[in-house]
Every structure is written in C-alpha cells, then in structure tokens.
C-alpha cells in the first residue's frame, strides 16, 4: 500500500542524477531504512537515473513510500521514452554495455534492491521499478 505523498522528479541531465540521489536518500531516511540499505537504494537509484539520462534520453522517476503489514519500503519507478532495450537478458548481464561504462549498472542495481522489475519495448521506452524493504 502506498502511504504519504508520491513525488515525481524529472531526470534529464547528469545534474538531475544528483537531485534524484538526494531525494531518494531523504525518503530512505524518512521511512527508517538503516545506513547500509539507504546506501544501497541510493546507489541503485544513481545507476538507474544515469541510465535514464544516457540511454533513455531523459525521463522521470516516481518515488513512493510503501507500507506492507509491519514493514516499510521505498519504491522507485524510472520511466523513459527512449529507444528501449531489445535484449533485456543481455542488458542485465554483468559487463555488457552498449555505452562506455562498466556494464554493471542494471545487474548491480538489481542486486542492491529487494524487488526489481524491468519492462521495455523497442522504440517506445523503458520502465524500471525497484523496491527496497526495511528488514
């Protein structure tokens, strides 16, 4: 269940990646994630936000606080209208990149969060939704 107010941030440039990190950190602190989990979700957000800028040509991220029974979570939904990913399985592989990075962003982000969901249609865009639960 989504609790509180969701916030949406535009992700169009490298500077926005910094804004996203700060907003995610603030929300992670607010819902009571411990320091390690805060760092993990902020780092995952940094990777995904940069992907949105570099590969998606810019987009948005939606930040939502979740409540499920006793546990609380932070859900981030990154969306772009870029070229999309033709082979998601390949894109998730460590070391694979069509750019100049290390090719660890997507796979790394998946390992840093509790839930990871990616959908992409070539020519239409990509949506990556991740959730980090406390405990």
């Amino acid at each position, binding site marked *: 269940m989504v609790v509180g107010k969701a916030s949406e941030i535009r992700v169009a440039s*490298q*500077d926005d990646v*910094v804004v996203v*990190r700060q907003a995610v*950190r603030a929300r992670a602190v607010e819902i009571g994630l411990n*320091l*390690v989990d*805060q*760092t*993990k979700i*902020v*780092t995952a957000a*940094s*990777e995904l936000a*940069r992907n949105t800028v570099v590969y998606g040509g810019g987009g948005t991220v939606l930040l939502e606080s979740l409540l499920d029974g006793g546990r609380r979570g932070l859900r981030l939904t990154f969306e772009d209208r870029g070229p999309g990913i033709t082979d998601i399985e390949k894109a998730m592989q*460590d070391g694979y990149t069509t750019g100049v*990075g*290390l090719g*660890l*962003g997507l*796979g*790394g982000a998946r*390992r*840093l969060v509790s839930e990871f969901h990616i959908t992409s249609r070539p020519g239409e865009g990509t949506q990556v939704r991740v959730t980090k639960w406390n405990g």
Partner: protein
Amino acid sequence: MQPLAREFIAAVREAARDGELGDTTRAEWSRTRDLLADLSRERAAQGFSPTETATFVFSFKQAIFKRLRSEFGSDAETLAEETWTATELFDKLGLYTAEIYQKAREEVIVRQQQEMLELSTPVVELWHGILALPLIGTLDSNRTQIVMQNLLEAIVAKSAGIAIIDITGVPTVDTLVAQHLLKTVAAARLMGAECIISGIRPQIAQTIIHLGVDLGGVLTKATLADAFQVALRKKGLAVAKG
C-alpha cells in the same frame, strides 16, 4: 522608484511615437528593453520575486487605461481597440522582465557551478613522495576530470611513488565513480606511482560488492591513517614513539 518610473514612461513614449506597438523586439524599443533588463537584474540580485519585478510594468496599466477612457470615452470601438493594444504591449514588457529575471538567476547558478569545480580538490603531500587526495562530494564527470589531472600532475611535480585517494567524503560510490577511480589508479600506475584508496566505509564496501565492481587489483584501506601507515611501510619508514 519615481525617477525610474518616469524614465520608463519616457522610453515607452519615445518608442511608441514612431514605432510599432505590436513588436517590442524592434530597435526603437531597445531603450525600454535595456531599462527593464537593468531593473530585472538588479531586483533578481536583491532577492525580489519575478512577480514583484513584473508588477513594476503591470502597475502602469491602470493609469494608461484611465487615460484611454478619458480620451476615447465616447467612442467605444476605438477605446476597446486601444485598450487591447495597450494590454498586449504591457504584457509583453512585463513578461520580458520575467525572462531577464530568470536569465539572471541562471547566470548565478552557472557561476556557482564553476566555483564548485574549482573548489575542494587539493592534492596534499603527507610525506616526501606520499600524496593524498581527499575527495569530497559528488564526483560528476567534469569534476572528476579535474581531480584526476591534478593528481597526475602532482605525482610528476613531487615525484611521488604513492598516492592515497581518500573517499571518506564521497556519499555515493556507484559504477561511474568506481570507473573514474579505477581509471585514475591505472593512469597513476602507468606513471610509476601506486594508488591506495582509503575511506571505504562498511556501507560503501557492501554496496561495491553488490554492484559487482572489481577493486581486486587496487590496494584499499578503511581509513586514511591505515593507508598512510601502509605507504610509510612501503617506503621503509615507520612511525615511532620518540
């Protein structure tokens, strides 16, 4: 305020006399535009809001309308026409102040960004041949390039054999930051210097592992003190109680 208002009205009158009322980008409006630009910049610097700035222009509307009414009161059609022309004109001039206001603020932001680049990337010499680079804040690509260059230049200038890169002050180490660090280490190595990365806090260590970044080929330490000790030992030095 009053002298400025008088000057503004004089400028508008001059432009309107032989000019085109519908297009304020024309040359005869340049004095009016300059006047408003100065006003906007000044007010942006003083912390006025864009609304307050534009209100300076809009506040003339009432007086103008009043004047038009007394002039064309009996001729409803002309009155409506002239009122519309005046409205359009003053709206344009008002929006122009908002535009300049925003530009002035953006200039401030760009200047601050430039200052940030200059800031906070000092390479310090801890001992003969041992350099330290304490990194603080976000490592975006612009800054990282400057940092990397500074370090490599200092390695040459001080003929240093060991450089410690301390990332205690870097809140997020993602794959891009890691890549920059690895490149710096590799470049230093090519120049014959060894790098030690220090200040890897527990949460950063766990995150790096999950990301799958391989720092295996790099000497890392939890604290700058540990790294310094290693550096001294490599040079055959030790800290002893005197």
